[in-house]
């Protein structure tokens, strides 16, 4: 697989949210506005790329038997770094994302990439894989959070775009809207990928 294929793989064929459907908790919880979605997406890109690079660099030194705890510590270290950085520089976003920043640790996509890719491949390839998967995650977050913000608030990034006559659909930013809209989004992705194959 060449470098570009590895990168593209995470965005389309193996998109973490829309295709593999892992790491749903944060996706459902914080996509109430586009800004939150982008913030979470960028945080995941940083943790995923960082942990992929370090795990891949250490793969010859980590014994096979204790690899999972080792992965978890490396991932937790990167999550803590992001947590502290966001606390210091983007405090409003930090408060909006709340408990879901430390919970990046248990986001299955990161552990899954460590196990399935970084532990078996070189540093550079792993970095690209992390970046690709992270961007795929970001794309899904941006899609879902824009839909929710437009429907539920009539705005995008806080700017009102729909006419005043539009009555915001509160449901879209409340918990049920998250489940239903993500379900429909996954359905749409299934539909498109089936059509492409046929």
């Amino acid at each position, binding site marked *: 697989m060449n470098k570009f294929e590895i990168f593209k793989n995470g965005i389309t064929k193996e998109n973490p949210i829309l295709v593999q459907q892992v790491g749903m908790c944060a996706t459902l919880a914080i996509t109430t506005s586009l800004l939150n979605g982008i913030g979470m997406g960028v945080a995941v890109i940083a943790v995923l790329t960082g942990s992929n690079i370090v795990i891949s660099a250490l793969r010859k030194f980590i014994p096979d038997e204790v690899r999972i*705890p080792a992965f978890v510590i490396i991932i937790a270290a990167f999550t803590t770094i992001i947590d502290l950085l966001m606390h210091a520089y983007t405090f409003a976003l930090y408060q909006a994302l709340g408990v879901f920043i430390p919970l990046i*640790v*248990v*986001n299955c996509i990161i552990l899954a990439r460590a196990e399935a890719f970084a532990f078996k491949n070189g540093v550079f390839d792993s970095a690209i894989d992390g970046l690709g998967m992270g961007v795929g995650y970001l794309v899904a977050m941006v899609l879902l959070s824009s839909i929710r913000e437009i429907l539920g608030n009539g705005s995008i990034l806080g700017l009102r775009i729909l006419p005043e006559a539009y009555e915001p659909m509160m449901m879209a930013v409340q918990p049920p809207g998250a489940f239903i809209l993500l*379900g429909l989004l996954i359905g749409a992705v299934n539909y498109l990928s089936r059509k492409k194959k046929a």
Partner: protein
Amino acid sequence: MNLVSLFITAFLVNNIIFSQFLGVCPFLGVSKKIDTAAGMSVAVIFVITLASIITFIVQKAILDPMQLGYLQTIVFILIIAALVQFVEMFLKKSAPGLYQALGIYLPLITTNCAVLGVAINSIKFDYSFIEAMVYSIGTSGSFMLAIVLFAGVRDKVDNADLPESLKGSAISLIAAGLMSVAFLGFSGLKL
């Protein structure tokens, strides 16, 4: 806050799946049959409660006095991973029947964000030890409520005649959304 209302709030009003979105992965993954859903949730209740006791003590007795609060994430996830491993070994030796029933779910719990989420939240909300206990039992109970109810719904959904693209997780999410509407009804509950 009195303990009964704390419990009801954690159990119904702030349902862990439908309003806090913690533990959605196992919720979607292990809700195909009612009995496996029940088995998983018993394991989750057990681990969440035990994990919050230990993380609470570690936070108050070690991290706070030594001002190591920033290590919370790393320390908690290690405690949970070790705890799950330990519980697994303990059950294997002393309660083989229970181990048989829960065995396959236990390793999955480490990456269940509900466990870490509840542990972090009870510190963040500044609960006392008793309150933290009630909160974690209520919350993990609400996980059981949600997953067992949903397993029943899913039984019907999986046999329904659906458009091909919506089959599987898409329709599960939509069904979960509808259940979440029902749980939204509890949000006006004042105690």
